[in-house]
């Protein structure tokens, strides 16, 4: 098969989720829709706005990055989770992961906290 630029991605039957977080982002979206937080049209609009942004990879490997960005923007617009809250909590999770010995489950409680301005999560 001649693979010119813009060719269809290889790996037709590879798993739909490359990493667990992609499956989690997908499932959270479905669960929030079931909960009535947004309509499917609202979701399609949010996702469409992200995937149309310039710089999307032609092989689609960044698809769930767009998906996550769409979910974040929708949750921010709905006043459920603001960007600064998500930023701070994501940083706490990264610190918690770093402080957790390999092979142990990563828990948010393991976050040793930043040097200043630790956020409250509970």
């Amino acid at each position, binding site marked *: 098969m001649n693979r010119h630029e813009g060719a269809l991605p290889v790996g037709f039957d590879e798993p739909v989720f490359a990493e667990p977080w992609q499956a989690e982002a997908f499932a959270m979206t479905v669960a929030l829709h079931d909960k009535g937080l947004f309509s499917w049209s609202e979701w*399609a609009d949010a996702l469409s706005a992200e995937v149309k942004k310039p710089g999307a990879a032609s092989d689609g490997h960044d698809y*769930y990055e767009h998906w*996550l960005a769409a979910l974040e923007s929708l949750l921010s617009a709905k006043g459920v989770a603001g960007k600064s809250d998500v930023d701070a909590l994501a*940083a706490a999770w*990264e610190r918690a992961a770093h402080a957790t010995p390999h092979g142990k489950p990563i828990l948010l409680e393991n976050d040793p906290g930043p040097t200043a301005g630790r956020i409250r999560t509970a």
Partner: protein
Amino acid sequence: MSHDHDHDNELDPFAARVRALETILTEKGLIDPAAIDVIVDTYEIKVGPRNGARVVAKAWVDAEFAAWLKRDATAAIASLSYTGRQGEHMQAVFNTEETHNLVVCTLCSCYPWSVLGLPPVWYKAPPYRSRAVIDPRGVLEEFGLTLPAATKIRVWDSTAELRYLVVPMRPEGTEGWSEERLAELVTRDAMIGTGLAKEPA
């Protein structure tokens, strides 16, 4: 623990953001982490394209069901208990000798999840989304499907409200086959239109 960072865990930034959202949404009572696992399991393992294959096989053997599927696919598919989580409407498009149907979502990646499971990687990728409309014949050739020049290709663009299921033509040499046996011939790609039903071995 020591300061040997090789033994630490790492979360990449995307995974960390997903965990952050999960934490916030769980605290607000908007999601239940156990339910999230069930959803992943359902779409990744339980649904797959098998539901759609059963719909197609039933349409091949049951003319009355085929007519219903053509008239009101949402109801016909729901009669087999395959209902969409998104409440979307379904339309079944039937391949014939004259016309081959191909489904795409140029807007994002709307897909009939209730019958086909989760979309394959290429369905979500920009080249397919843009080129399926501009050059469907060329796209099909990349999938290894060369149609006779006389066969028309009709492209259906999915939306959040309306999803399409392609009903491929029943292969020759399958007279008298059971629905279960026929369903084995119906691939995911055949129901998107990037392939045909498998020939009997």
